[in-house]
């Protein structure tokens, strides 16, 4: 699938600097940069099975995409140590790349540096809110250890009111807490900061 060097259009052999990897697919010649761009755009279509509006790139769990002669390696990091969605996410990444003609794919999970909600994209936060989940607060107050700390002001994703209160520190999945709006009375999930 990958070759170096490759024949140029005029029949001569083009030599590329070491480390620049070239792929021929559908007679298309992609530079390393274009290749990366293409891979990332494919990864942008893979969603989180538990929060289907978010893609894996929105979440910031794709740390690196490595391209070598015959293999694509995608480095991912889990949101939580026990996140049950990780195996499925890894499988979905493989599927998406297979569908796009890549054959040898490896998904590797690394723990360090540890994932943080700071890595979630602005677009991801916007989509979360639209979906009815309050996005993580940029100021990491809830992460502090102090007990009975004043509840952080979390905006209701439905009516935008700031009059909300925490019902439970733990919600439907490990990454969420449960809140309720005091104005529209709707309960909602808050994607807690981490």
């Amino acid at each position, binding site marked *: 699938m990958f070759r170096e060097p490759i024949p140029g259009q005029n029949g001569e052999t083009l030599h590329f600097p070491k480390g620049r990897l070239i792929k021929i697919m559908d007679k298309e010649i992609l530079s390393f940069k274009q290749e990366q761009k293409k891979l990332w755009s494919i990864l942008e279509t893979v969603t989180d099975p538990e929060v289907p509006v978010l893609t894996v790139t929105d979440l910031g769990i794709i740390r690196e995409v490595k391209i070598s002669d015959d293999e694509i390696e995608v480095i991912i990091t889990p949101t939580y140590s026990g996140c049950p969605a990780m195996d499925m996410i890894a499988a979905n990444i493989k599927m998406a790349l297979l569908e796009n003609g890549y054959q040898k794919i490896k998904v590797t999970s690394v723990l360090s540096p540890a994932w943080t909600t700071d890595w979630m994209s602005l677009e991801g936060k916007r989509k979360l809110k639209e979906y009815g989940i309050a996005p993580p607060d940029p100021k990491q107050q809830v992460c*502090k250890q102090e007990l009975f700390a004043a509840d952080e002001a979390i905006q209701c994703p439905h009516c935008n009111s700031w009059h909300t209160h925490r019902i439970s520190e733990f919600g439907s999945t490990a990454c969420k807490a449960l809140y309720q709006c005091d104005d529209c009375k709707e309960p909602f999930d808050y994607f807690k900061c981490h």
Partner: protein
Amino acid sequence: MNDSLISYTLHLADTTLILSQKNSEWCGHGPILEQDIAITNISLDLLGQSRNFYQYAAALTGGDATEDSLAYLRKEREFKNLLLVEQPNGDWAQTILRQYLFSQFQYLLFDKLQTNKDEQIAAITTKALKETAYHVRWSSEWVIRLGDGTEESHTRMLKALDELWRYTGEMFMPAGYEKETGIDINSLKDPWLKKVKNIFDEATLILPEKVFMQEGGKKGNHTEHLGYILAELQYVQRTYPGAKW
């Protein structure tokens, strides 16, 4: 060195696995829905942490070892978990106190392990520490709520304290493999006691003194409870070896 690192990693893996298993027993039985979800969320965090430790221990061990073989096929005397985490759930007070005493310790320990010279131990604990911060906060709020609650809840906390305190000393008594991995576990005792005292003061509970401390879990000498836990946890792999689904 490698042997003691494997033992230490297994000690961390076993401790988190067994507490996860105990907490998961509350699934569908929590006092109210939100707290049922909270305790099982904590259980899931601990399970994730234990998997990370087991995977690392398996990689260090090499050969046929996998995270599953280490969790499902080792015998009671090979488990190195703390005695505290294998104690029965009892009532909600006992489960809460067990969680608090452990989480407060785990927080201090993992904070220290974040900078451990072993990169993988550092990576696993850095990740887990964020989760543990939530466990400490949640469980300490409950210790205060129950301790400084009604006469009934206070009495139950006293009973839980009487049951569990004797298993806390072991956390700070280093096993041989802990010493060899260069972790000064004893230095965590005073910071831990200080934190616990602050919470107990708020909870109108008194720090017990002069209690004989049980030990042995780290070396594989367990209370009667671990055998029952493993009988349940390992049942499928023991009955149908190699079963997959």
